[in-house]
């Protein structure tokens, strides 16, 4: 009898521990990353080479960021953190910049990384007018006083140099010992790179995939994943299906337009991350062509285009309507410059004033609207055309155009009336490219000496308060001149299988290093021996919160069943013993 009682108590103890195990497990899973596993990440376009310094390659970003490093790194477009350089200083006139490099960095072939590599890369880019020549062309001279110090001498002040070097356009540092004395274009390392980054190049199957493997000697510590495979899938529907079936693990924002987000919500196997983009959707006017040379017409469009309706119908409410002349939520946005709400009467009044009254057929004038095929712009254009018809403006749509056609039409031939467009405006420097007189992405052909002067003043100071003051003033002038206005604040949607954590777009888990997969880990991985202690600590300090209610119900029912079963077994055995005796 005593034996059965002991057995019963044992079972009861074990069962009572079950809820603890269940409670601790999910919490532990979040706290301790595991090592191992392969992530297949879809990319819509394959890169051309693995040497981003030769020429621009918009789709090398994912692959390149994980194999190479740059001097600094701009997190989430705003915060500057170290990359290969742990510290940097500038002279008071911002013409001389000194970078201190990490000492323990090695190239993937084992050679030490030094300041000579930095000097070689910048000089090499200038020699071939390669990618990021726009930044490096101002470098007059490079000094390398010791292997871990680099000094750049510029021919003009640039208070933003450290930011320019760290933004996500990527300025990779190349290995001098591999490239020296060779033609970059034909050097084998252009296709089979040797970098300093968290992952090493393993394989490139043309038109199919690129495989990277973990760099055990990465100076910031080994990445969690064993491999990442960048898999080329050009068709969006196929990529979505592959994510649903689990054939791929992650889908970057290039694939997902806001209108298609709702179909993925509510699938527990897929995690959706929505992040604000630094390139809002805007309306640009061709200031050199009537009727948009008249500010009254431009202002009438500001009143006559309902941004709320555009956000609702073209972006399924995922991209909020813009309210200011700069990015939502940025500390550089002037809160005093507020875009007016939709007002049809006001729009009509302004058009009357501008000398475009309604004609007998009810229309005022005809014009064209041009857009590229990206960012939901064709959908937005359709909504805008309907809205402008209400105020008597007949609009013909030109598009959707692919990137190259759009740029050569709008920026090359200046053959457009007004456009739905985008463009990165994360900083005053980028705004200058879009609206400065000599800015090469200046679609409206806007030119205001006062604005240009303010932009150059921003370039020669590093004081945030002063920069903000100048930039606030620029936004006020822009609102008066109205060469363009913001339509909606674009949001990027990223998706991944829920069993992968710490993807670059999950900022709170990855540290916000765009495109870098070193913090990604898989729930099916294993803890390394060095990780066991950390995991154990995590377990004991874990707070049992947020555990789903069904765990408790399941455990309670299991407990009751076990108790009944135990009582039954004990009772039956007792009866048997009695009978036999």
């Amino acid at each position, binding site marked *: 009898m005593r034996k059965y009682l002991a057995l019963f108590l044992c079972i009861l103890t074990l069962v009572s521990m079950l809820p603890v195990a269940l409670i601790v497990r999910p919490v532990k899973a979040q706290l301790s990353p595991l090592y191992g596993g392969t992530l297949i990440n879809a990319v819509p376009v394959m890169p*051309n080479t693995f040497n981003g310094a030769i020429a621009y390659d918009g789709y090398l970003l994912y692959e390149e960021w994980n194999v190479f490093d740059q001097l600094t790194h701009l997190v989430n477009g705003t915060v500057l953190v170290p990359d290969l350089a742990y510290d940097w200083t500038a002279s008071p006139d911002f013409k001389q910049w000194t970078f201190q490099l990490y000492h323990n960095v090695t190239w993937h072939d084992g050679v030490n990384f030094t300041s000579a590599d930095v000097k070689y890369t910048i000089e090499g880019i200038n020699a071939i007018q390669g990618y990021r020549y*726009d930044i490096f062309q101002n470098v007059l001279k490079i000094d390398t006083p010791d292997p871990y110090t680099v000094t750049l001498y510029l021919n003009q002040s640039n208070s933003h140099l450290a930011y320019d070097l760290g933004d996500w356009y990527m300025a990779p540092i190349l290995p001098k010992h591999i490239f020296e004395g060779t033609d970059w274009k034909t050097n084998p390392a252009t296709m089979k790179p040797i970098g300093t980054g968290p992952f090493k190049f393993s394989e490139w199957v043309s038109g199919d995939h690129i495989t990277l493997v973990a760099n055990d000697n990465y100076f910031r510590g080994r990445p969690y994943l064993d491999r990442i495979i960048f898999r080329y899938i050009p068709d969006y529907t*196929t990529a979505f299906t592959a994510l649903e*079936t689990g054939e791929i693990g992650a889908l970057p924002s290039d694939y997902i337009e806001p209108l298609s987000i709702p179909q993925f919500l509510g699938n527990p196997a897929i995690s959706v991350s929505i992040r604000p983009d630094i390139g809002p959707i805007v309306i640009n006017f061709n200031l050199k062509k009537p009727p948009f040379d008249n500010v009254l017409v431009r202002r009438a469009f500001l009143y006559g285009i309902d941004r709320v309706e555009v956000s609702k119908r073209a972006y399924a409410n995922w991209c909020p309507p813009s309210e200011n002349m700069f990015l939502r939520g940025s500390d550089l946005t002037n809160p005093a410059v507020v875009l007016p709400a939709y007002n049809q009467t006001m729009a009509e009044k302004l058009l009357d004033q501008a000398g475009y009254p309604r004609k007998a057929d009810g229309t005022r004038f005809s014009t064209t609207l041009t857009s590229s095929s990206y960012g939901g712009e064709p959908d937005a254009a359709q909504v805008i055309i309907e809205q402008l018809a209400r105020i008597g403006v007949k609009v013909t749509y030109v598009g959707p155009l692919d990137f*190259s056609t759009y740029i050569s039409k709008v920026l090359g031939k200046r053959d457009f009336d007004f456009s739905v467009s985008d463009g990165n405006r994360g900083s005053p420097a980028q705004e200058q490219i879009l609206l400065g007189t000599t800015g090469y992405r200046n679609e409206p052909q806007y030119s205001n000496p006062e604005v240009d002067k303010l932009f150059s003043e921003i370039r020669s100071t590093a004081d945030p308060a002063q920069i903000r003051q100048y930039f606030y003033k620029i936004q006020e002038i822009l609102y008066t001149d109205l060469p363009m206005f913001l339509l909606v604040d674009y949001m990027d949607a990223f998706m991944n299988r829920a069993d992968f954590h710490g993807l670059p777009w999950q900022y709170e888990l990855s540290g916000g290093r765009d495109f870098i997969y070193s913090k990604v880990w898989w729930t099916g991985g294993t803890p390394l021996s060095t990780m066991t202690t950390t995991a154990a600590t995590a377990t004991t300090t874990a707070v049992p919160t947020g555990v789903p209610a069904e765990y408790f119900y399941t455990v309670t029912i299991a407990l009751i069943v076990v108790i009944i079963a135990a009582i039954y077994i004990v009772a039956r055995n007792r009866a048997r013993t009695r009978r036999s005796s």
Partner: protein
Amino acid sequence: LSTLYRYVGRRLLEIVPLVFAVVAINFVLVHLAPGDPALFLAGENSNSEQLAAIRHKYGFDQPIYMQFATYLALLLRGDLGYSYFQSKTVLQLILERLPATLLLVFPAYTLGILLGTLIGVFAAKKYPGKTDTVVSLSSMAAYSAPTFWLGMLLILIFARDLRIFPSFGITSLTAEKQGLEYALDIGWHLFLPVVTLMAWCLPTFVRLARASTIEVMREDFMLTARAKGLSDNVIFFKHALRNSLLPTVTTAGLYMGMIFSGAILTETVFAWPGMDLLLYHSIATRDYPVMSGIFMFTTLCVALAMLITDIVCALLDPRVVLK
């Protein structure tokens, strides 16, 4: 036989001006299309100086006839050129991607023609009747279905819902496979794209074989054959089929070229790493040398296929005379 040799020689010579014409037309068309490769080479952050430098470096600033002359001079030396973007020659790129395309196109093409002809002949044999009507209608429906739509539908049904086939690619990348296992893996990935591409060419051959067989069955010599007292099967297979297959052979030759260009949609939908996906990418980035190279390759394929078709036709039909 010497007639045949002379004929082949002459036809091969004829290919030369044909290819030249196609190269010229392609070159003009490709350069007339809006867009500028310099933009892709310089990138978003480029200024007009940089663009000018790149245009000069690659010769985009020269008049189009000079660019054509340069291209032609290279071509005569057997050099298809160098990709603007990828660090490889055009020939290297094409040869790298050709095997995957052949792997997809060859089974789809042969199965499409064989099955299509068999079904068509079968329907003709049952003509007029319910079976024939069903075959005719369904082949018409299949003929009208767009390739990309069919491909997506197959992916949604067989990959997403039933999970029996993979939705894209040529191999699974998560596990390393060797030997037979590797071959089976490719076959498993090949199934849906082949069905999609086959569905594109099969209905044509069904309709063609059916129509021409029915037509031949009405000819006078068929009546003669019957009058001779030949059995139905002998009449059908020996007399009718041999005559009715001539249009099929001719069309098969034409399709040889079309299937290379037709695979572009299938390769895109299934992310199949073939030559057509390379073409798609080079069009998007205005990589002129790669575009022209693939177009020329396709032209050569069509020209050669037409030659082979003519010879096969002559062998099949004694009435065709090679001159």
